[in-house]
């Protein structure tokens, strides 16, 4: 119990610290949301002062921070300067898109990365092993904006297999239920009127962005699986199992893989945290309406409430993911309980 309490109490200073740093940082970058709104047109000083006042930007910075924290504690993250919508509503509308893409990308990375890693470990120092490890290095260093465009050129423009960008074919009208298109397109009303075409369309739209976003995690997972497997395969108990005449498949998949999976699962959880919050480039290339793109746009327009609120929510998601991993560990690993 003490363990959980400590974990959750840690959350408070972490989020406070992040908010403070983010708050100060965005005010350190020069530029002004009001002048950005008016652009080349300019604004006269009286109107400028009025607009600053309306946005609460004429208060001292500590006072602005105090109001931000006070409101955030009561669940109000403020209103976007650009769109005038509440930051929370803007986030909720975009999060499912990012979540769906992130989950799919990680799924892609896992189902390919783990088997490749295992195979490379078994065939250690073979041609395949070298090939896999060097290509994973290439995958890891692949610039996503370039990779995304190559995927589009090959699969969409040349082969015509997948759509170029977007989440679903634009002629479908899907009522929002969860915001996850793979689920929403299976609602009975949609299936009745359009059949499974919207579902397939959503799935097709997910392929290229998932590959683009999943490439780096795939490389990480493959390398991680390989090294973790190698470590476990060298353990005494594996040698004992082999000596007892157990089949190779059983040794690898039952005895070795289970133990090797522990660090891989941790990596997966951490990757998930960053993948659902850091899909900025993928979202821009594939016109994916998610939160990465939203935050970047808010920085270029100096939309302070969105940057502050958005960063706070994202940090919360990442910190919570880490806490959940710790909690799972607590149950999985008896050593931690002592």
């Amino acid at each position: 119990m003490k363990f959980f309490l400590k974990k959750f109490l840690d959350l408070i200073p972490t989020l406070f610290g992040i908010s403070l740093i983010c708050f100060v940082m965005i005010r350190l970058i020069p530029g002004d949301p009001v002048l950005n709104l008016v652009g080349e047109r300019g604004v006269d000083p009286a109107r400028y002062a009025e607009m600053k006042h309306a946005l609460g930007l004429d208060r001292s910075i500590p006072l602005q921070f105090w109001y931000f924290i006070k409101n955030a504690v009561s669940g109000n993250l403020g209103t976007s300067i650009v769109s005038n919508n509440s930051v929370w509503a803007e986030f909720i509308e975009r999060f499912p898109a990012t979540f769906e893409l992130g989950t799919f990308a990680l799924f892609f990375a896992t189902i390919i990365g783990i088997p490749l890693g295992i195979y490379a470990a078994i065939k250690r120092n073979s041609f395949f092993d070298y090939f896999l490890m060097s290509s994973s290095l290439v995958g890891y260093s692949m610039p996503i904006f370039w990779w995304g465009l190559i995927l589009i050129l090959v699969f969409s423009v040349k082969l015509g297999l997948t759509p170029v960008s977007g989440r679903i074919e634009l002629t479908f009208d899907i009522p929002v239920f969860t915001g996850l298109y793979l689920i929403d397109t299976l609602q009975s009303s949609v299936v009745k009127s359009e059949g499974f075409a919207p579902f397939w369309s959503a799935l097709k739209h997910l392929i290229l962005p998932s590959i683009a976003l999943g490439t780096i995690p795939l490389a990480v997972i493959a390398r991680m699986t390989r090294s973790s497997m190698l470590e476990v395969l060298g353990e005494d108990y594996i040698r004992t199992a082999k000596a007892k005449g157990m089949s190779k498949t059983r040794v690898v998949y039952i005895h070795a893989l289970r133990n090797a999976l522990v660090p891989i699962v941790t990596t997966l959880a951490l990757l998930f945290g960053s993948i659902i919050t850091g899909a900025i480039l993928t979202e821009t290339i594939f016109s994916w309406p998610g939160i990465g793109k939203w935050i970047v746009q808010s920085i270029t327009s100096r939309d302070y409430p969105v940057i502050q609120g958005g960063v706070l929510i994202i940090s919360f998601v990442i910190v919570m993911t880490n806490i959940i991993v710790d909690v799972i560990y607590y149950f999985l690993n008896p050593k931690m309980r002592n």
Partner: protein
Amino acid sequence: MKMKTIFWTLVLSFLATTTSHAKSFVYCSEGSPSSFNAQLVTDGTSTNATAGTIYNTIVAFDIGTTKIIPALATSWEISKDKLVYTFNLRKGVKFHTTKYFTPTRDFNATDVVFSIDRQRLRNHPFHDVSGGKYEYFDGMEMGKTIKEVKVLDPYKIQITLAQPDATFLANMAMSFMSIISEEYGSKLASANKKSDIDNFPVGTGPFVFQSYAKDSVIKYAAHPQYWGTRGNIDKLIFAITPDANVRYQKLKTGECQFVNEPSPSDIPEMKKNSNLKVMQDAGLNVGYLSMNVTKKPFDNLLVRQAINHALNKKAYINAIYLGNATVAKNPLPPTIWSYNDAVKDYEYNPELAKSLLAKAGFPKGFEAEMWTLPVSRPYNPNGKKMGELMQADLAKVGIKLKLLTFDWPTYLKKASQGEHQMLQMGWTGDNGDPDNFLNTLLGCSAIASGSNYSKWCDKKFNAAVLEAKTTTDIKKRTALYKEAQKIFKEQAPWVTIAHSTVFKAMAKNIKGYKIDPLGHDYFTYVSVE
């Protein structure tokens, strides 16, 4: 066997999900609109998604020109003293019927009053909704210009001005003067949902708003009871696609039929593609180099003239605009009336520039800073590269240039505070009136409002543009603006660089599209064949 059949059926249905819809028109736009009320927006992206698509104004620009034609008003009279405008409104105009609103009456004078007063009067019940920011209305000084808006009868409205203003009608045709439904406003006010007026729009325009998925897609349907003529599009879809490269790929695969802002480097390839059509027209814009006359040595006229002689503008047209622009000699683009073709531009002559600098007391030149435009704009697609070319040109006459740049918000902030010596800037016209260039960018009052980046206030020039604004005699106005352009050239607060060509790329089967000189996209007359 059965499993195999199911498998292949699934694969085939998966591959065959791309269906085409005959009268749908997909427009690949470059960004998300900031609001669905045209009164609140200033950027092109939001204007395309609102004005002209959802709304009408009482007078309008004939699409493809800057000529003012009747729209929701069928005719108008102007009093002799040029202070009172009486508009006769169109009868039988229907507002959109949507999922969230069913109008019970036609458009009438109360809607005009509601639309203008919301922006004009601080105590209007809707003034503060959505932040109460009316950048365009304030920027065009409509609050100061309009003294009174009066309903004479349900189809007659009278607007009284505080002083004569020759640009008034052109301003009335701008997107921020869009007419919104008063009946819808009252309904929202009684339901305590005022802000819906800007998110769930109701207008009289050719397309009815259907839905918006943030950062992804906006859907419209044709307005079945539209008062004017329109093309054959049933469904208008904006596919928000921020990357220009991806927009082009979508055009190639047929996922969209029209792309906004094609990248200049893709134009030659687009022209070769037999499935596509590229349209081009002279843009109503100007790219310029502004010299801050309050900073030394740019307070010296000879220095400003020397810089004008030192820059090889023709070279920039080829290198920066890939030939798709004309050299600018006036702040006004040549397509605007009153353009003074008699003005002689400063020829490219480094030797003359050197001698002018020597005369000004800088025989060995000097060191200066120039800010290069951090964003790509039609009037200057590559500020950094242009800066480097200018740096090389000025080095030849002894001016050592330090190039600086900041991100766009910072650039605007520092420029408005006058921290620069020289900076690259530009402008695209709002309403096709010369005042919108000469007074807005170079008038003395524009120093305080921030759009006169040279901080140049010339008494003669200012008197001419102010007089032209308050005169409605077009001959007199033309003469005054021509004179103003002459003074501008002599005093040289800018180096005028280029007026660029605007490109639009679309599928071959799109008909009826006209390029708007003011830079917006209108789909009223567009048809898919």
